[in-house]
């Protein structure tokens, strides 16, 4: 089974196992910080690889394959696992060695996939994880008996406590002979069908003969939507397989799950020999006690609300000081760099373009880090599954599952970490639907805009128990949720229809999170965002800087600058400041962004917006809250001012230069708020959607859909309001 230590080289090892087997903990323990994350080509499944030093100067390149229940795939994750193991995955050849992780406390369920993979005839080490938890429960697991029966090396480990990892690393340097065992028997007629199909499959070097059988079986069981099979097997063969499957359905009902029963019978025999369980270990008393509270009819939802409140509040509040710190730091750096550079376009590019762009990217990182800190603690401890269990009923109303709740909740702070959190949704269609509705949740960047407009246009009156401004703010949040429900409902009935309609989820035992693993996850998510989405955000910021600064309005600005110089000479600093603001305003008005605002005016006039709001809409593409500072610049106000009152007054009293009447009515304010609720303005969100869906189709779809909805809704509000006589 194990022979001499092999030649020094980089071994290609894959870690594989059921979800909740502790795979990722083992991966993090073996590779530490030397990881990289990418996507498998064409799909949204994450490919995690890392390096691990082995004894005697050898190294291993380790791939953490997604958690799976079966080689008969029910999700894109499981399809990738099958494709890699069968040699169908284009960029990932089958691993030289498989480390298969099983949970010692749930051996029989976890052995199911293990038997399937052992049957493939590839070199494999079975790592029986969570031996510490098994010992605590009085379970005795005879690894030597398992080794004998399975024909592969077996060792007990505890990944969370780094137990047995040295032995595992040592084993990984050896040449492991694949097992020759089979654990399933096909009845004679099915055997013949499978053999006939096998002969028609293309001969390929990557595929060991025994794996060809699995490909044939996969072909028989296939039920559409299987890219790898379509790539590798001719249409004729696939059609024949479907005909054969139909015939089997007629003459041999139950053939589709015969091998499942066979494997479980083999497992029962294996476990009977290899596991000594005390009579009382049937139920886990501690788990039961915790669950009785956490999923209690009344306390369960209360605890859930408190937990979610804590997470939400932390993303909102804990991240804020860090974001302020980054903001402060970047401003200081900008000032420092600005003071050593000569005044001119280059300085403006560096300070207002590049440094500001880096700042924008970095301010997202605290939110992402804090959210993923909580998410990985909730996930590792086992609470996440309970949260999904509690919320499933509610979310199923719009065709989603309980897993969608937390990403959507996080999106009220910011859609970017929210969209990144959808990774925990196994169902691909649910995940995409959740991504598409996440930006409808009113994020913290919309709050300054709501605050400005409500303060300017909504009178502070009491209506029963609530104030009118409070009601207006609530309505904006509610409108976003309503839009999300409608869009989710529509998507799940159209483009995201179908898929296996099975919502089954494991409720794992409660565990202390492995802190090292939590830390690695937080770091990895933050870096991933900075590297991938960050570069796009930086580029967009620089482009928007350019649009808002060029072309320089030569004549008028030069005249203003000489006026300012005169004011400085006289010592009239107030006058000088006023002129500086006028210069900024004039520059913005005549920039590309300003001209675009004017160009946009006929289009947005039916919504009640003029060119000044148009400029705000354009600069909002960097981040929605930029709208506030842009409007301040447009109205000749100090843009860094934290006090919104002067700007509110300016908005209320703004005059339409052509008619001489007031430019904005309360109806304009309402229409603009509705627009901000629904419009897709945040380019950073689109960058993240692109990365998370691994395509440009979805972000473009999001952009078009949301903006059409926003335009339509604002149009209805403004024009409808005018018809009803609220226009002035």
């Amino acid at each position, binding site marked *: 089974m194990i022979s001499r230590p092999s030649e020094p080289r980089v071994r290609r090892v894959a870690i594989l196992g059921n979800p909740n087997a502790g795979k990722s903990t083992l991966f993090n323990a073996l590779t530490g910080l030397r990881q990289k994350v990418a996507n498998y080509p064409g799909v949204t499944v994450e490919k995690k690889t890392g390096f691990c030093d082995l004894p005697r100067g050898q190294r291993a390149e380790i791939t953490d394959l997604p958690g799976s229940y079966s080689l008969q795939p029910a999700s894109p994750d499981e399809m990738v696992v099958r494709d890699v193991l069968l040699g169908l995955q284009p960029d990932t050849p089958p691993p030289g060695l498989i480390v298969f992780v099983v949970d010692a406390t749930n051996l*029989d369920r976890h052995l199911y996939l293990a038997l399937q993979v052992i049957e493939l005839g590839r070199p494999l080490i079975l790592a029986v994880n969570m031996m510490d938890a098994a010992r605590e429960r009085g379970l005795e697991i005879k690894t030597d008996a398992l080794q004998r029966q399975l024909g592969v090396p077996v060792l007990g480990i505890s990944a969370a406590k780094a137990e047995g990892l040295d032995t595992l690393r040592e084993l990984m340097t050896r040449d492991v002979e694949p097992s020759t065992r089979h654990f399933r028997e096909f009845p004679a007629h099915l055997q013949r069908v499978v053999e006939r199909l096998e002969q028609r499959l293309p001969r390929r070097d990557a595929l060991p003969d025994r794996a060809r059988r699995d490909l044939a079986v996969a072909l028989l069981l296939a039920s559409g939507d299987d890219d790898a099979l379509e790539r590798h097997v001719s249409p004729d063969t696939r059609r024949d397989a479907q005909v054969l499957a139909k015939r089997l359905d007629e003459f041999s009902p139950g053939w589709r799950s015969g091998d499942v029963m066979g494997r479980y019978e083999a497992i029962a025999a294996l476990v009977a020999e290899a596991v000594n369980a005390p009579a009382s270990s049937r139920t886990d008393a501690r788990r039961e006690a915790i669950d009785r509270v956490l999923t209690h009819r009344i306390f369960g939802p209360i605890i859930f609300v408190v937990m979610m409140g804590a997470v939400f509040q932390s993303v909102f509040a804990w991240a804020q000081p860090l974001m302020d710190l980054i903001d402060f730091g970047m401003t200081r750096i900008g000032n420092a760099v600005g003071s050593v550079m000569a005044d001119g376009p280059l300085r403006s590019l560096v300070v207002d373009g590049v440094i500001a762009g880096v700042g924008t990217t970095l301010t997202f990182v605290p939110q992402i880090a804090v959210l993923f800190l909580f998410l990985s603690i909730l996930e590792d401890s086992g609470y996440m599954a309970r949260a999904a269990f509690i919320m499933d009923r509610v979310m199923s109303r719009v065709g989603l599952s309980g897993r969608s709740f937390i990403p959507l909740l996080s999106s009220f702070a910011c859609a970017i970490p929210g969209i990144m959190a959808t990774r925990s949704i196994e169902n691909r269609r649910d995940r995409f639907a959740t991504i598409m509705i996440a930006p409808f949740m009113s994020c913290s960047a919309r709050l300054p805009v709501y605050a400005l407009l409500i303060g300017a246009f909504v009178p502070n009156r009491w209506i029963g128990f609530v104030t009118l401004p409070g009601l207006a703010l609530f309505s904006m949040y509610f409108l976003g949720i309503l839009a999300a429900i409608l869009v989710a409902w529509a998507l799940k009935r159209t483009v995201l229809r179908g898929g296996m309609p099975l919502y089954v989820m494991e409720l794992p035992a409660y565990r202390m999170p492995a802190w090292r693993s939590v830390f690695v996850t937080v770091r990895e998510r933050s870096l991933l965002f900075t590297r991938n989405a960050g570069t796009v955000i930086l580029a967009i910021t620089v482009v928007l800087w350019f649009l808002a600064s060029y072309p320089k309005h030569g004549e008028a600005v030069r005249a203003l600058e000489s006026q300012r110089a005169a004011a400085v000479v006289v010592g009239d600093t107030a006058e000088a400041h006023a002129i500086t603001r006028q210069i900024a305003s004039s520059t913005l008005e005549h920039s590309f962004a300003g001209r675009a605002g004017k160009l946009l005016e006929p289009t947005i006039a039916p919504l009640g917006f003029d060119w000044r709001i148009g400029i705000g809409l354009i600069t909002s593409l960097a981040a929605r809250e930029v709208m506030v500072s842009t409007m301040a610049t447009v109205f000749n106000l100090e843009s860094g001012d934290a006090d919104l009152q002067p700007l509110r007054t300016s908005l209320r009293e703004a005059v339409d230069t052509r008619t001489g009447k007031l430019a904005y009515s309360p109806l304009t304010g309402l229409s603009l708020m509705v627009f901000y609720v629904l419009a897709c303005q945040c380019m950073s969100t689109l960058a993240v959607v692109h990365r998370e869906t691994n395509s440009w189709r979805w972000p473009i779809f999001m952009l078009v859909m949301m903006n059409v909805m926003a335009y339509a809704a604002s149009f209805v509000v403004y024009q409808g309001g005018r018809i009803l006589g609220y226009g002035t």
Partner: protein
Amino acid sequence: MIRRASNLQTDCRPLDRLAAGERGIIVSVDCPPPVARRLMELGLIPGTEIEVVRRAPLGDPLEIAVRGVHLSLRRTEARHIDIAPV
């Protein structure tokens, strides 16, 4: 196992009718083929003992225990799984 259970057909109930804490033996998994296969791969094999541990606070889904593993299962699937008394 299956034959013995089918003699008790009259006592069979769908899984979603079991009360919290009630146990039974799986007789059949009558879902569309891919769903049935997946449920069996997760250990819901006819002849296996199954327990409804609890219902979610809003009544759906169910928490079931089978082979020492706890799963959350919606009633739409549980309806098609027939259970005989232990």
